C-alpha cells in the first residue's frame, strides 16, 4: 500500500466513492433521533402522570409516526449505538413541570425541523414541513 500509492488511487475506492467510509450519515439522522426521543419523552411524562394521557398520547404517537416516516425516507436502519432512551423526565412530578419540559423540547424541535425543511431537497421538503408544523401544534396543545 505504501509503495503503490498512485495505483491505489486509481483502482481503489476513490474512483467511485468519496473518501469517507462508511458513507456519510444522512442529514435527517438527527431529526429522526429527535422524533424518537420526543416520543419517548412524552411517553415517560404520561407514565409519570397518567392524568395527562388524553393530551400526551396523540402527541407521542405523532412523534413516533414522524420517526418511522423519517426512517423510511432515510432508507437505512438507525445507526447502532443510537441511544433508544429518552431524556429522563427529570423528576418533575408536578404536571406543570412536566408540561414545561415538554414545551421546551417541542420548541427546540420545531426550530430544528424548520431548519431541516429550509435545507432539504425538494422531495423531502413537504414531509419536513409537516413535521415542523406538527411540532408547533404540539406546543399549542400543551398550553
Amino acid at each position, binding site marked *: 500500500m505504501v509503495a503503490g500509492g498512485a495505483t491505489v488511487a486509481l483502482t481503489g475506492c476513490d474512483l467511485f466513492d468519496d473518501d469517507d467510509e462508511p458513507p456519510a450519515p444522512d442529514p435527517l439522522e438527527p431529526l429522526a433521533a429527535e422524533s424518537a426521543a420526543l416520543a419517548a419523552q412524552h411517553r415517560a411524562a404520561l407514565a409519570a402522570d397518567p392524568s395527562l394521557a388524553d393530551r400526551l398520547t*396523540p402527541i407521542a404517537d405523532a412523534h413516533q409516526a414522524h420517526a418511522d*416516516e423519517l426512517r423510511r425516507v432515510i432508507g437505512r436502519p438507525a445507526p447502532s449505538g443510537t441511544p433508544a432512551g429518552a431524556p429522563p423526565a427529570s423528576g418533575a412530578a408536578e404536571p406543570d413541570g412536566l408540561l414545561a419540559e415538554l414545551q421546551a423540547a417541542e420548541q427546540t424541535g420545531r426550530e430544528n425541523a424548520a431548519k431541516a*425543511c429550509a435545507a432539504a431537497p425538494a422531495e423531502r*421538503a*413537504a414531509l419536513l*414541513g409537516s413535521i415542523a408544523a406538527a411540532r*408547533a*401544534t404540539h406546543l399549542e396543545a400543551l398550553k
Partner: protein
Amino acid sequence: MIPRTAPTGPAEALAAALTAEYAAIWAYGPIGVRLTDAARTAARAAEAAHRARRDALILQLSSGGGQVPADRAGYALPYPVNDRASALKLAIEIEERTAGFWRAALPHTTGADRNRALAALTDCALRATRWRRTARVTPLTVPFPGRPT
C-alpha cells in the same frame, strides 16, 4: 379537501395557494356570523391573517410576471353553516385545506419563498388546532398537517 392535482412549478404552486386563501377568506364570512365573543374575535383575526397571505401572494406573483388567478364571485359551502357547531367544523376544515396547499408549495420553493410557505402552513395548522380546542374536538392535533389523507 387537499389540492386535486400536484403543482408543476413554483408559480403554479403559489397560484394554487392563492386560490386557497381566497376561499378561506370567503369562508370566514359565514363562519364569523355564527360565532360570538372570543370565537368571533378569533375568526376575524384568522380572516385578517388569510387576507395578509393573499395580498403578499398577489404582490409576489404579479411582480414575478406570472399569472395571478382572480377570486371567484362566490363559493358553495360543503354543508349548511347555520349554527356554532357547523361554523367551527368549517373553520377547522378550511384551515386544514389551506394548509394542504401551502404544504404542496414547499417542494416547489427554496430559500425565503420556502420559509414563507412553511410559516403559512404552520399558521394554518395552529389555527386548526385552536379551532379544534374551541369545538372540543380531540385530539387537538394531526400527525402530518397538510398531508393529503
